[in-house]
């Protein structure tokens, strides 16, 4: 599938914010892992959770597993959402009887994502939920306002809302991902 400059750019900017959440930090075994099997042969030894022991004897061994989900899954969903979303939105306009050029629309929807990228970077810097919600609301409004003239001009005025609502929905779901990811 060909990606326009707009979506490539959006992808390049979203990648660091997703990658940041993988950063290793000094944690404690109590929080990060759980003893997965072993019937008592695996133990987290001290109160701070800095020492974990696994032992192996004649009958069996032991093991532990991380408490975290596979983090790259979030990135995959974000990327798939944006790529598929741009294509589906363009198809939506075409099906409603509108007149747009397919790749122009993909490109525009990708570029209009830029304010949300700025918002994501700001949210990365300061981990406060209220601040994140304000930043995301402002940048979401900005992104939607940027995409509005193009999308509304592309369709019959009686169907304007039908073409614009999905654009808004896509940007809202991106905004939600930004707030929800730590």
């Amino acid at each position, binding site marked *: 599938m060909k990606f326009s400059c707009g979506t490539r750019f959006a992808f390049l900017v979203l990648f660091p914010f997703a990658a940041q959440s993988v950063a290793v930090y000094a944690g404690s075994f109590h929080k990060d892992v759980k003893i997965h099997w072993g019937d008592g042969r695996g133990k987290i030894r001290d109160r701070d959770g800095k020492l974990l022991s696994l032992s192996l004897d004649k009958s069996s061994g032991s093991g532990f597993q991380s408490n975290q989900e596979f983090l790259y899954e979030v990135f995959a969903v974000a990327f798939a959402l944006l790529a598929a979303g741009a294509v589906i939105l363009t198809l939506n306009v075409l099906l409603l009887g509108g007149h747009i050029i397919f790749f122009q629309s993909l490109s525009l929807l990708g570029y209009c994502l830029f304010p949300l990228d700025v918002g994501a970077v700001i949210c990365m810097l300061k981990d406060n939920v209220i601040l994140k919600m304000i930043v995301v609301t402002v940048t979401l409004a900005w992104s939607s306002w940027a995409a509005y003239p193009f999308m509304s001009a592309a369709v019959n005025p009686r169907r304007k809302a039908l073409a614009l609502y999905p654009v808004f929905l896509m940007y809202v779901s991106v905004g939600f991902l930004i707030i*929800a990811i730590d």
Partner: protein
Amino acid sequence: SNLQTFPPSQGKISGGSNPLRDADDTFSGPGNGSTDEPHSGGWLHKFTVGAYKPFFDVDTSDVMDRLKESLFPFRGTFTEKTADKPDLYGPFWICTTLIFVAASIGTFVTYVAHKWKKQEWNYDINLVTWSAGVFYGYVTIVPLALYVVLKYFSAPSGLVQLFCLYGYSLFIFIPALCLSVVPVEIFRWAIAGVAGFMSATFVALNLKAHINSAGERSILIIASIFLLQLGLAVVLKLYLFTVTI
């Protein structure tokens, strides 16, 4: 073109003698073929945008009317109103909105529950993928199965009409999910029950008039689709709103 199923009860075959019209203008129904390329490409034609345009021939006011209809299940007039212009816009975007609302409300509920007990919380992306599977799957598979069953019992209904009916029947779940944020268990069950009941009645009543011709089996069919819809509401409530810390 004759690519779409044409329910015999609808009868009229229109469109063969229409004067030249712009393809963007009113298609008065699924049976009305496009004025250009009636058979070019054969099965490949199904992969063009033009093949599906007739199903998106609705204005904002039409969609709003249909949404309002779906909120009043006891009228039973939905199928008449959408018989000649069933749309796929409503079902697709209602499902997509539902997926988003379900995932975000489900996430919000677990977030609040974890923060309340001062526990670590991590975003669970499975909510999104799971709700996508459930909603898209339900609206695709159940009408398809119903279409086959109805054809078997000689009371055929157009496939697109069925998709349209099922898609709009899910609209009531959007406000229901929003209301379910309230952390009172009884209230959540009540909301799930009411929404499931309204949605199921909507589908059942609108289908009833149509399939009475199937004879004594029609009660069985109606009962099973009613229960399926209720089942969906229960599954939603259980998966999204049962939070274990």
